[in-house]
């Protein structure tokens, strides 16, 4: 019995040593634990100080000039910065909004502007963007253009993006997407509600009717 206990204790010690010795394995999983926290109650963050809509003049999916402020003036507008070579969060975010949008009345759907601004303009040409968005919601607006212009526009909303680059170690392409969707009021044209990437279809379904009216969700 005593021997057994000792053996078990030694096993435990060995396991502990193994775990601490291989700390990198722990690091890989620990951020996931944080993400799993229930945040459904605070999908929307209503901002005390709304953001001004960025003064972006870019190119739409038809290759035409698109002046964001002029085109979306007085419209409830959602803006997201992402890229199409993104398998996970970018299509999920846009699909969540697309599904929630379908629950709106036809009239409200016609009012809403959903704008996807690429963070990877070198690969996301107007036609690439158009093809991708068509698979999600053909009414969504896709914008591309000069990266520095896009980055500066994102920065005015507190969204930080970097140019697509090659990783020094692996030589693989690394792109960056924003982690937030910002909603702009049709009444003030100010960016007044922020959604993190944990926002679900249900969150958007619940909130969009209010955003269409410029009300707080």
């Amino acid at each position, binding site marked *: 019995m005593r021997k057994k206990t*000792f*053996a*078990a204790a*030694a*096993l435990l*010690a*060995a*396991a502990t*040593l*193994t*775990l601490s*010795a*291989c700390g*990198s*394995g*722990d690091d*890989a*999983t620990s*951020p*996931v634990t944080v*993400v*799993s926290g229930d945040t459904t109650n605070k999908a929307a963050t209503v901002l005390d100080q709304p953001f001004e809509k960025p003064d972006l003049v870019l190119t739409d999916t038809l290759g035409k000039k698109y002046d964001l402020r002029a085109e979306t003036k007085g419209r409830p507008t959602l803006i997201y910065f992402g890229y*199409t*070579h*993104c*398998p*996970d*969060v970018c*299509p*999920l975010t846009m*699909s*969540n909004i697309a*599904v929630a949008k379908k629950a709106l009345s036809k009239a409200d759907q016609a009012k809403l502007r959903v704008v996807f601004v690429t963070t990877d303009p070198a690969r996301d040409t107007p036609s690439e963007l158009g*093809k*991708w968005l068509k*698979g*999600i919601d053909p009414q969504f607006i896709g914008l591309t253009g000069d990266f520095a212009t896009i980055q500066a526009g994102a920065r005015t909303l507190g969204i930080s*993006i*970097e140019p697509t680059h090659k*990783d020094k170690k*692996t030589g*693989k392409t*690394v*792109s*960056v*997407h*924003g*982690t937030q969707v910002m909603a702009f009021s049709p009444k003030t044209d100010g960016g007044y509600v922020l959604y993190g*990437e*944990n926002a*679900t*279809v*249900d969150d958007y379904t619940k909130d969009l009717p209010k955003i269409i009216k410029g009300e707080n969700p």
Partner: protein
Amino acid sequence: MIPGRRLTLAGAALGSVVVLAGCGGSGASGAELSVGASYMPQPVSADMAAGFLTITNKGGTKDELTSVTSDSAGEITMHETTGGAMEEVNSFDVPAHGQLVFKSGGNHLMFEKLKRRPKQGDTITLKLKFAESGPLTVEMPVKSATYNPSTGH
């Protein structure tokens, strides 16, 4: 067999050898791997898709996921996401008595050049290869584009 191994381990624990063995990946006791919670959100096109799953290791030795392949896709790579940046990695540790989790917003499998666009209801067959354990086959269901595993819809 088992008591014998315990004794060996008990002896080894007294020395520093165990630390080296713990990371060397050559431990004889072995990892015990199983896969759960796998799904693929229906992708926008056949160009690119994401896949998620959890690998649980009940064994006392860590293992390493070294490759993922499927007849349905030309290429499958493993990625980690940190603060919106996605980076390819060549392998992921499966810690002893722990889990390797691929989930939306975190680590993910990236499928490229799929034979056709996977649709909700389809199943993608994957083969996972490890540094130590034998390969595992996973039948990954294709869920809706907005599937959320915590709510199940």
